[in-house]
């Protein structure tokens, strides 16, 4: 912690929720959260690179333990995708689900690392002040993922049903073909198309952000003395253990919704 700043609860939390930013151009939009981007890219390269290294030497014979582990994960995801998506899943949907699951799981798991210790290491070893290590607590990340999925969803809607088919679906489902309900149908579909990326991204963001804030609140027990520190540490450990479930579950939910949205785009009503 920077000692010149007075350490109050709100300054502590503010400090941990501040991004390391870079201004690319004038304007409030052209800000880049360097910490979010770099951490997420490193995590993606580590996890997918690991899988790639394993897969490159994959044998169809008796697999090594590492390969068996990767296969287990891939097979698990492949089965889930197979249940939902009935097209050729190997060209995009299944590998995409794998990417989403592995990457989000890695990003979420950064939440479990002790926040003050990592901040200390980043600041003193790498000289990086205000480095947020959990990319999924940045709404830009979750929105980026959800919007990419959303764009793919629109793309497949048009690709599979044709522009006419999709427009027909916009106007004629879910209430029927009658011109009297066209407006209602369109409104309904509009709400659906808006709510999908919102719920998709905000669910992940909310869960992980809340988890992060609770870690920060538990961390503040350390300000009350030795017994408070011990108490906070025990609670923090409990929350971290519980968070293993949350982190995995949120990654899984995000992946499942990704597959479901794209599968829905492939199916005519």
């Amino acid at each position, binding site marked *: 912690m920077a000692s010149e700043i007075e350490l109050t609860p709100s300054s502590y939390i503010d400090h941990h929720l501040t991004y390391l930013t870079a201004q690319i151009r004038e304007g409030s939009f052209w800000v880049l959260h360097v910490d979010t981007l770099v951490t997420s890219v490193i995590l993606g390269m580590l996890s997918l690179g690991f*899988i790639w290294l394993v897969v490159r030497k994959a044998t*169809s014979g008796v697999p090594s333990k590492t390969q068996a582990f990767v296969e287990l994960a891939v097979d698990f995801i492949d089965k889930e995708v197979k249940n939902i998506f009935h097209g050729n899943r190997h060209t995009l949907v299944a*590998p995409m689900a794998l990417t989403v699951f592995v990457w989000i799981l890695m990003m979420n798991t950064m939440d479990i690392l002790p926040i003050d210790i990592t901040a200390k290491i980043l600041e003193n070893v790498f000289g990086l002040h205000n480095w947020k290590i959990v990319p999924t607590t940045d709404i830009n990340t979750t929105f980026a993922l959800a919007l990419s999925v959303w764009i793919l969803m629109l793309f497949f809607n048009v690709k599979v049903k044709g522009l006419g088919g999709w427009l027909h679906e916009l106007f004629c489902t879910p209430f029927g073909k009658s011109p009297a309900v066209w407006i209602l149908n369109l409104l309904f579909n509009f709400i659906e198309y808006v709510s999908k990326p919102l719920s998709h991204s905000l669910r992940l963001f909310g869960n992980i952000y809340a988890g992060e804030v609770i870690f920060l609140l538990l961390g503040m027990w350390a300000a009350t003395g030795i017994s408070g520190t011990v108490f906070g540490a025990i609670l923090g450990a409990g929350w971290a253990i519980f968070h293993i479930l949350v982190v995995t579950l949120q990654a899984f939910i995000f992946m499942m919704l990704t597959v479901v949205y794209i599968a829905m785009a492939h199916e005519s009503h």
Partner: protein
Amino acid sequence: MNINFTLISQAIAFSVFIWFTVRFVWPPLLRAIEERQKTIADGLAAGERGRHELELASQRSSTVLKEAKQQAAEIILQAEKRASEIIEEAKKAAKEESGRIVAGAKAEIEHEVFSAKETLRYQVAELAVAGAAKILRREVDSKVHADLLSAIQEDLK
């Protein structure tokens, strides 16, 4: 919590990662898994085939065994029949042989009897000659009276 350029950069990172997985990660692993599934399926099929063949072989062996038993029984039956035949033949041969032996013995006995009779006759003739000589009280020159003696002998025969 403001939307900014990070969103676009993250979306780009996301697409690159998806491309990477689609291009490099998924296909080889899928191939390996599918090949292994095929190998396992083949192995299972081979096992099933082996089991089936074993069943057939055991069936075949049991029929062969049954046939062999039957043949053995037949052979034993034939052998018994043959044995009794041989015994019968032997009995017949023995009977014939014994008959022959008995006949030979009889012939020999007859011959012995005949030669004994002959000897006896001869001796009787000699005794008769001797007796006659004694009765005549004179020497009968056997050399002189040889023809007489032989005539007597001839008569006595």
